């Protein structure tokens, strides 16, 4: 597509990257067909092609964002189904990330929205604050009908309360920091770092506990380094660039220290949303002379747990003959392009794996999307759980905590992380709720 960025604009690295992306788009419209919001709303402005056009026009004219661009960019789930569909290789993720940062820099959101976003970006990445908030939410759950009537905040707060767990798991040892050494093994230790991250450790500590057992069983040590925290994805998707980069740099420092201390053959991630972002650190910090190289090294080391396990010797015993509906998180299939590895592992573990019809369409979780856009997220969840029910599974397996929370709130079919299922099939405990 023709572009019209002035040389002055192109002096800016972000603008240069975005110009290149827009330039590669041929406006064929294929992306509209697999965009969840276009399917629901039927307005090209709520499709990738429409958003690319809005973003292009805003950036080319260096126009501060208005509530119109904000409305349509905010409605984007960043599910990246469009990137899987696009034959021209348009890197929509980097474009919409830039747009979100540009919006944050040039547009003042209404007060209620600003406060909500500030609270979310402060609370969720901090395990302590998030735990405290969930305790409050637990008390608030029964008050949903009252909360719903609060002006401006009502719908979103109700969505949050609905998603909050009924019971909050206690803090466990596998939250780290610490090192979990595999039994046996010679002097040549193999070692990986496992991301503890933020929300998942609070909502579902059993996922990383299962992962540690699983990886230890293959003879590999697992380290949860001191000082590691949220990957930055959450604020990154809110356009808060400085904070997301600060979080990225902090983690890069921690992992780099760990590499220097004892070597790491991978940084294993059990939430595919986080994995997508960590794999993008190299791009995010490309202009940072101090970090560019280190960031690229960390990105190259980052592996989804299923990606890492595929190369290891895992033995499964007494498999449970269950039908598993595999829900591929968008960050897994579109963000990281990991499609077969989780299913192959589940099959190797003895489960009957079924694909979910319309599996390329988002469940509506999308980070904080289900909190900020509850209406669209709710419709997508209904569509997703109906599609899952069609394959009549005993259990749903997936690789992202956001999807687990979102889908669990809409179905009575048990749901577990792929790593929990694999841990169970190789000698670990039965996943809760199964």
């Amino acid at each position: 597509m023709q572009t019209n960025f002035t040389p002055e604009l192109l002096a800016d690295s972000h603008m240069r990257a975005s110009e290149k992306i827009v330039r590669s788009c041929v406006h064929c419209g294929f992306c509209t067909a697999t965009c969840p919001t276009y399917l629901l709303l039927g307005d090209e402005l709520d499709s990738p092609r429409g958003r690319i056009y809005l973003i292009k026009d805003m950036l080319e004219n260096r126009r501060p964002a208005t509530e119109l661009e904000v409305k349509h960019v905010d409605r984007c789930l960043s599910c990246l189904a469009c990137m899987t569909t696009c034959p021209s290789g348009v890197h929509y993720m980097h474009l919409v990330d830039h747009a979100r940062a540009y919006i944050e820099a040039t547009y003042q959101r209404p007060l209620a929205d600003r406060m909500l976003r500030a609270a979310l970006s402060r609370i969720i990445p901090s395990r302590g604050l998030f735990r405290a908030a969930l305790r409050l939410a637990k008390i608030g759950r029964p008050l949903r009908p009252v909360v719903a009537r609060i002006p401006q905040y009502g719908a979103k707060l109700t969505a949050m309360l609905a998603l909050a767990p009924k019971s909050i798991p206690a803090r466990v040892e596998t939250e780290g920091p610490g090192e979990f050494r595999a039994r046996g093994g010679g002097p040549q230790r193999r070692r990986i770092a496992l991301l503890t991250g933020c929300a998942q450790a609070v909502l579902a500590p059993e996922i990383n506990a299962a992962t540690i057992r699983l990886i230890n069983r293959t003879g590999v040590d697992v380290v949860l380094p001191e000082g590691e925290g949220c990957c930055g994805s959450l604020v990154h998707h809110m356009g808060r660039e400085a904070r997301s980069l600060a979080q990225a740099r902090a983690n890069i420092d921690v992992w780099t220290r760990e590499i220097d201390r004892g070597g790491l053959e991978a940084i294993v991630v059990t939430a595919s949303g986080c994995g997508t972002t960590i794999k993008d650190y190299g791009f995010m910090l490309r202009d940072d002379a101090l970090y560019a190289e280190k960031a690229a090294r960390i990105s190259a080391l980052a592996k989804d747990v299923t990606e890492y396990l595929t190369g290891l010797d895992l033995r499964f015993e007494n498999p449970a003959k269950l039908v598993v509906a595999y829900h591929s998180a968008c960050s897994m299939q579109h963000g990281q392009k990991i499609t077969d590895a989780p299913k192959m592992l589940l099959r190797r573990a003895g489960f009957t794996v079924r694909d979910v019809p319309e599996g390329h369409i988002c469940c509506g979780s999308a980070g904080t999307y289900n909190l900020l856009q509850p209406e669209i997220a709710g419709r997508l969840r209904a569509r997703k759980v109906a599609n899952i029910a069609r394959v009549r599974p005993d259990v749903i397996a997936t690789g992202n905590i956001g999807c687990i929370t979102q889908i669990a709130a809409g179905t009575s079919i048990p749901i577990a992380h792929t790593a929990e299922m694999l841990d169970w099939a190789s000698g670990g405990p039965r996943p809760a709720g199964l």
Partner: protein
Amino acid sequence: MSQIAFPPPDVAILARRDAILAGLAFLPEECLIVDAIERRAFETDALTAYRRLPLAVVLPRSTEEVARVLKYCSEVGVNVVPRGAGTSLSGGAIPQEDAIVIGLSKMSRILEINLADRYARVEAGVTNLAISEAVVAEGFFYAPDPSSQLACTIGGNIGMNSGGAHCLKYGVTTNNVLGVRLVTLDGEILDLGGTHLDAGGFDWLGLVVGSEGQLGIVTEATVRILRAAEGARPVLFGFDSAEAAGECVAAIIGAGIVPVAMEYMDRLAIEICEGFAHAGYPLDVEAMLIIEVEGSDEEMQAQLAKITAIARDSGVKTIRESLSAMESAQIWKGRKSAFGATGRIADYICMDGTVPASRLPEALRRTGEICASYGLRVANVFHAGDGNMHPLVLYNCNDPVQQAKAEDAGNELLKLCVQLGGCLTGEHGVGIEKRDLMRFQFSAKDLDQQMRVRAAFDPNWRMNPAKVFPLDQRI
């Protein structure tokens, strides 16, 4: 640059814009787009070299809403441009400054599926592929399959009489549409055709299919759905020269063999598509044919044996049969993504001229010569069995000189097709792209007659007015 002219906008309409839009207030907020920031996204389709910001965009949710909007536009004298998914390569959905775009994207429901009588009734905004997907579990499909079938709408297919790879055997849109609901400019709702072939009365469908949104707006369609064959197998035939592949196509058609699809790709197109789809295309050949046969195993083998014998006579270099459904899917994914994937290496304009199959070798040779004379690269990927050429003329759209050259080369290519006994458009429609070349194919008398028919529906030229007919010859 912009070699293709648009009529100057009606300043009186622009001056009355606010008052005109006020009359559309009966539409809910999410169905009416008025702000320039939002309208901008509708200024073009897949022919992005041309762009016009529309007066407004409306996205109606029902036939009744379409009728109300059209009636209103007719009363206030505003031009109307219909839009499906905006995937037109000929500029069929490009608006004008004084026109209101009516987009059918909110009308995307499948209304009825009748397997016993083999039809599906759908709203016009349903995508082509969604129809097949709705019946695939029962073993049926909707035959015409434009490469953009994932995204393009049945309404747009009807407007352009779209084709596709499998039309060689099953015919194009006009052979697969049984009925339409058409809203005329004065808001009248007409049901044309029916639920079976050859409905009684005049052949209104023959008139409406391919009319490029100039007679009215189709809001619903009843289409044939067909039983899928027992099996289908694409086979890749690689050749050392374009002419050899072209001769092979002519020989197969000449022998009375009708495979379900016969697609051509040249070396550049093969490279581009293989890079995206990893379909296992041969990379050491000058041209490749994807020939698909279908039926029972015996039928497929018998037909393949005949085709292979002809291919050997034409000097085929490599032959590779698809061995699994997954391989077949990749082979078709590569072919159907060809245009978009070309965007990875350059901008392009995609031609759509058609020649008799026997003239393909000559057409291919001349295509290369014409593009070379402009110093431009060309990738050929097209429906060879139908003689429907799609040279993709590659250029840099940020360079106005190259853009002008690409358009000149494109015009020469289309004229070549007419000279070889073919026509300007196989399936993409005339749009704005081939509008001024219509004189090259039709005499003034022919065009006058076509325009008289058009004027019977729309005497004031309000419906998609800048398209199809040369601007200076309007009646």
